[in-house]
């Protein structure tokens, strides 16, 4: 893995902002898990616990006009693109104030105004879609980039390969990532693929690839910056494999007994928030008091967000019939 000169490449303000989003993501998802255990959230509940550095790192590397087609463990990316914790909780609670107005749940949030293509459960389905968004930018000569990815399991799907191939043939401004968290639900990567590194898949498409320490937010940020710059310069797509570990079950109902305890113990030491704090201390960018302050701040924000979400109305049953088709006034004539 490439070593990065963190101190020289990431400004203090960027570091502190990423730290804030790491904490916000962790605390928000911890609250979501708690609500799930209390039975106040129904349905699936997927967290990025232990993997927060990936979404926070890549979303911090993008510009406002860029677009993401995120994975279902990319909460940090939603927050950085401007989905508020209140909207997130409203979405989880099935409220009308969530980004899908109750039509869809959990991380299935999309909003074109904030450059977010809504997630589809069929993993890798959004990779061709992201490729098409990048195609639109290329056709119009815009310097915008699309960032999209899936998990290790998702790279087995045909859509992953069809998207990687088409994007590479046409040198489209898209960055693909895989957050390799070693398990697709309960299936370990050794039963998912016969290669040790997912990044090897990129070779078949003539695409450069890079292995990145997915638990190091600085490494993710810098690798994303490099790939984005390449895409923006018209040099085509890059594939980034973020090595990480899923620390919770697939969904919160899943105790993940199929994961060896030692493996979790080992990765617990590599927790992305602990590592960010160590680095911030080394760099002299922040101290323990700052970490405490951020912790209190995000808890307050989440309390307010939950109040907003709980006070928001549920949709009326009859709203199920709305929105199957778009009206002509919803698109440019």
């Amino acid at each position: 893995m490439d070593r990065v000169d963190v101190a020289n490449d990431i400004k203090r303000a960027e570091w502190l902002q990423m730290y804030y989003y790491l904490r916000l993501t962790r605390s928000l998802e911890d609250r979501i898990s708690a609500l799930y255990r209390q039975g106040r959230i129904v349905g699936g509940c997927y967290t990025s616990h232990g993997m927060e550095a990936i979404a926070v790192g890549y979303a911090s590397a993008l510009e406002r006009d860029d677009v993401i087609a995120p994975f279902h463990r990319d909460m940090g990316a939603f927050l950085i693109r401007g989905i508020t914790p209140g909207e997130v909780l409203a979405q989880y609670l099935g409220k009308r104030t969530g980004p899908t107005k109750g039509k869809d749940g959990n991380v299935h949030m999309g909003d074109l105004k904030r450059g977010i293509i809504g997630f589809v459960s069929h993993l890798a389905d959004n990779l061709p879609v992201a490729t098409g968004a990048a195609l639109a930018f290329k056709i119009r000569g815009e310097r915008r980039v699309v960032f999209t990815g899936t998990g290790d399991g998702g790279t087995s799907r045909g859509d992953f390969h069809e998207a990687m191939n088409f994007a590479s043939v046409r040198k489209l401004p898209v960055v693909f990532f895989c957050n390799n968290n070693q398990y697709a639900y309960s299936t370990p990567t050794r039963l998912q693929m016969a290669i040790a590194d997912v990044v090897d898949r990129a070779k078949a498409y003539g695409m450069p690839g890079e292995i990145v320490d997915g638990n190091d937010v600085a490494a993710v940020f810098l690798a994303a910056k490099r790939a984005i710059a390449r895409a923006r310069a018209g040099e085509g797509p890059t594939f980034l494999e973020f090595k990480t570990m899923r620390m919770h079950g697939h969904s919160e109902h899943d105790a993940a007994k199929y994961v060896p305890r030692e493996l979790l113990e080992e990765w617990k030491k590599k927790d992305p928030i602990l590592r960010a704090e160590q680095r911030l201390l080394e760099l002299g960018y922040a101290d323990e008091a700052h970490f405490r302050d951020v912790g209190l701040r995000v808890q307050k924000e989440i309390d307010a967000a939950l109040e907003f979400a709980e006070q928001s109305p549920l949709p009326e049953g009859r709203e199920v019939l709305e929105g199957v088709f778009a009206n002509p006034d919803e698109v440019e004539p």
Partner: protein
Amino acid sequence: MNSATATEVTYLEAISQALDEEMTRDERVFLMGEDIGAYGGAFKITEGFLEKYGEWRVLDTPLSESGFVGAAIGAAMMGLRPVVEMQFADFISCAFDQITEVAAKNHYRWGAPVPMVIRAPFGGGVHGGPFHSECPEGWFFHSPGLKLVAPSTPYDAKGLLKAAIRDPNPVIYFEHKFLYRRIKEVLPREDYIVPIGKAAIRRPGNDISVITYGAMVHLALEAAQQLAAEGIEVEVVDLRSLMPLDKDTIYGSVRKTGKAIMVHEDNKTGGIGAELAALLTEDCFDSLDGPILRVAAPDTPVPFSTPLEEFFLPKASDIVAAARKLAAY
């Protein structure tokens, strides 16, 4: 130009004209598909387009239906108006997931319109065998969020394609291969559309409604002529749009005639004819004077060998036989 000197346009040319005129009218419109560039498409619909519009508006894609339909969805969300070509409608199964899970549900789930068109050359009678003759409209008829059209004339082929391109939703445009070069007519010189969701009465009649679409419209007209000689006046309803269905026109016809035959080239079980029969029973039962009949392909894949395919495809004589049976009620 008056009609005496106007040239007749085939169904295939009408499709080309619609694409050409829409690409000229709106620079957001672009094409993707297999072999549509230098080769001009398997059926030559886009011949000359690459030279005229360049490689970024006429994109030859890898052999990758799911990939390029997905790409069309993304491009549409970013403000372009993609029109993708399935080389044969049969291959749409490779893109089924992108169409039904992504395109169809997108607006409903999170409010982002997907204004795109998938052209699907469908239907048999061209010795295509099991993988080049299918009528897959039934699969999509059952997926909320998709509009489906199936023109039967050059006029409709052009007007419905223009309407599809201008629609803010994903539209699957089923163009019948058998009609490509077999029918022609003079088209208006001015820009026009055929609105999605409006059926057409192709032949008025008071005794029996024959409700159909695509190439079967022509069989129905042939049968109607034969039946008229026997004193049975058939009304031929051309659906034109399969989703949404023009219930006003369908119900109006059946309330007048009291009898209905559904004709389609798709397999009989679970086809659009079955849905229409259910709708008519639910909403027009008091007007019915006989059972609702279906004339459709048997529940088999489309076979290759000529006698097998001839047996498989509905014939005018099948419609005549059904009409005679129904006339006896």
